[in-house]
């Protein structure tokens, strides 16, 4: 894990962009989801009020999170749930493993949980000889391919049905060349049903945890979390502490926003409220920090903890849609991932806040009104100040600062720039110039604006005197 060299976003995106047809398809597929979100949102008269309400609730949560956590733990324990606390990814993984070890179980069925991706739980358990099967269809597909998910809601969005067919042919023995999604889904259903029926431990994520009642809610369309949890002897639920909301009635706000923002559905097929374990069975909750308390202390960035993981910001982001989730080298990709990742590791993830046009589309669709593009912009400043930007960029920016600060230098630079571009274009239009890499260079104007202005103001003065 840690020894892997991280490929910078721009470099990974360049690779992704080589297959033009696929990039266009990726772009259109996500835009299709974004359009469904719009249609769904516009059908709710209260939509903007809902967003504002959700945002206010989350503000309240962040400023009272200590007390809400204490309240949640006490209520969950009263319900018969065993509560654990993990300071970081390592401790989270150890806790999950210790529960497996206590029951002497070597197999687990998992439903989607981006937190366990963040903590690299699967790798950790594999090292301990424990087999984990991801049961969300998209997760299952990428797991068979030994890839991470490329989207938090649509984990296999980067794959075409031909890819899935090939993967299933190899691992499940499906018919070669049968690309029918119905057929492929049916094959996975059979395989995973057997998994659900034989696993003693099921792990799920948590969408919302309610302080007032000590219950937690898991949302899926497939019913995989429920199949796992209701058939297993032990249910482990893992949550980042920011998933907390104050009262049960607040679920009414968040469940109205979540699926509509994510996929344009009015609600996920199943919104399951787990309050108590079944008789004689065990239910565990692992509450994880892993850098979240640090983010809570960063005034400019703490709003990112309001995120409910709907993925709307990714679907709308022109950079994400054209660079693919894997280029973000982080469990959570796209705009929200790019403000969460530098908090975890600034030097590893310094490239991510730059993987954005700062167009603000992410902020506009965010159901809890996180100021995503402002935070991206603020991260850039922090990262530059802390010296985490590439040398070429730092040098270029310093040079630019000198030029812009000195009118004489600016004038000379402009003149020589126009001269070079006109007479020796090869000096500018080459691979060394990162700007030229992506763009046509403009035609060179005859004169600079300053020259034009001087001439024109003189002419108009003369005219005025006539």
């Amino acid at each position, binding site marked *: 894990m840690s020894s892997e060299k991280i490929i910078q976003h721009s470099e990974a995106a360049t690779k992704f962009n080589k297959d033009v047809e696929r990039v266009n398809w990726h772009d259109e597929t996500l835009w299709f989801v974004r359009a469904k979100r719009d249609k769904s949102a516009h059908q709710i008269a209260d939509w903007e009020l809902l967003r504002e*309400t959700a945002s206010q609730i989350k503000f309240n949560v*962040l400023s009272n999170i200590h007390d809400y956590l204490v309240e949640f733990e006490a209520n969950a324990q009263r319900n018969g749930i065993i509560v654990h*606390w993990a300071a970081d990814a390592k401790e989270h993984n150890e806790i999950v493993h210790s529960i497996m070890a206590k029951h002497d179980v070597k197999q687990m069925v998992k439903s989607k949980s981006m937190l366990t991706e963040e903590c690299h739980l699967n790798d950790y358990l594999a090292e301990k000889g424990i087999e984990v099967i991801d049961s969300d269809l998209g997760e299952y597909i990428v797991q068979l391919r030994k890839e991470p998910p490329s989207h938090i809601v*649509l984990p296999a969005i980067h794959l075409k049905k031909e890819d899935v067919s090939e993967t299933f042919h190899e691992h499940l023995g499906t018919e070669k060349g049968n690309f029918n999604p119905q057929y492929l889904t049916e094959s996975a*259903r059979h395989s995973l049903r057997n998994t659900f029926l034989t696993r003693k431990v099921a792990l799920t994520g948590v969408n919302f945890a309610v302080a007032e009642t000590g219950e937690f809610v898991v949302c899926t369309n497939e019913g995989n979390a429920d*199949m796992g949890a209701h058939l297993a002897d032990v249910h482990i639920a893992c949550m980042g502490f920011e998933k907390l909301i104050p009262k049960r*009635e607040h679920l*009414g*706000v968040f469940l109205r926003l979540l699926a509509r923002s994510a996929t344009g559905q009015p609600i996920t097929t*199943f919104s399951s409220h787990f309050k108590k374990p079944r008789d004689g069975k065990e239910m565990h909750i692992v509450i994880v920090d892993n850098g979240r308390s640090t983010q809570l202390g960063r005034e400019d960035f703490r709003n990112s903890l309001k995120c409910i993981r709907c993925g709307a910001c990714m679907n709308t982001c022109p950079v994400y849609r054209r660079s693919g989730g894997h280029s973000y080298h982080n469990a959570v990709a796209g705009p929200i991932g790019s403000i969460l990742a530098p908090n975890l590791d600034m030097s590893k993830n310094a490239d991510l806040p730059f993987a954005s046009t700062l167009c603000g589309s992410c902020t506009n669709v965010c159901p809890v009104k996180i100021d995503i593009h402002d935070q991206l912009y603020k991260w850039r400043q922090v990262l530059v100040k802390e010296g985490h930007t590439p040398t070429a960029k730092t040098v270029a920016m310093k040079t630019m600062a000198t030029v812009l600060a000195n009118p004489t230098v600016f004038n000379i630079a402009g003149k020589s720039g126009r001269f070079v571009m006109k007479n020796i274009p090869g000096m500018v239009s080459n691979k060394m110039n990162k700007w030229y890499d992506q763009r046509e260079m403009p035609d060179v104007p005859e004169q600079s604006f300053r020259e034009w202005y001087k001439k024109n103001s003189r002419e108009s003065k003369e005219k005025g005197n006539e």
Partner: protein
Amino acid sequence: MSSKGEILKRIKANQPELVSELPDLNLLGSEQFDVLETYKTVLKGIGGDPVEVANYDEIINYIKSNYNLEKRLITTLPELSEIASLDWKAVDPHSLQDVELTVVKAHFGVAENSGLWVTDDILGQRVAPFIAQYLAIIVHKKDLIPTMQQAYQRIGNMEYGFGTFIAGPSKTADIEQSLVLGAHGARGLIVFLLD
């Protein structure tokens, strides 16, 4: 474990001053629309089938003519004992794997998203609505409400070990965004809207 204390200490030190009181939820959920028509339209839109019925006899007839009674049908409703078994609430949940149809009742339904609220006291077993090949849920028309706002007002402090909103059949679109019904749970959902 000492991590709890550490985490809570860090959170307390880093959390901001109170920036917002909890907002007034009564401002929400005032949308006006035809609840029954909206319910049916939304349900159809997400792959479920609304069936309006006057009484339990109509439900029995519908199930008789649409499902194979040779297969295993289970229910929690004594009114349906003619066509479905009632004797499964205490069995090992794994043994429900061959169930063709589960029929249960919902506390209420929500028009804006067609969700039906069920809890373990009316489910018989938690896994029952998930493990069956097909699912039918009965709800009284008078128990349809407009939005999730009213739903949680109605749930209030209801006591349950497990509760879930079920909206349509199990589904996935993970393969190239093609919608496929019947991912892991029920392949189809009939909602009997009872007078």
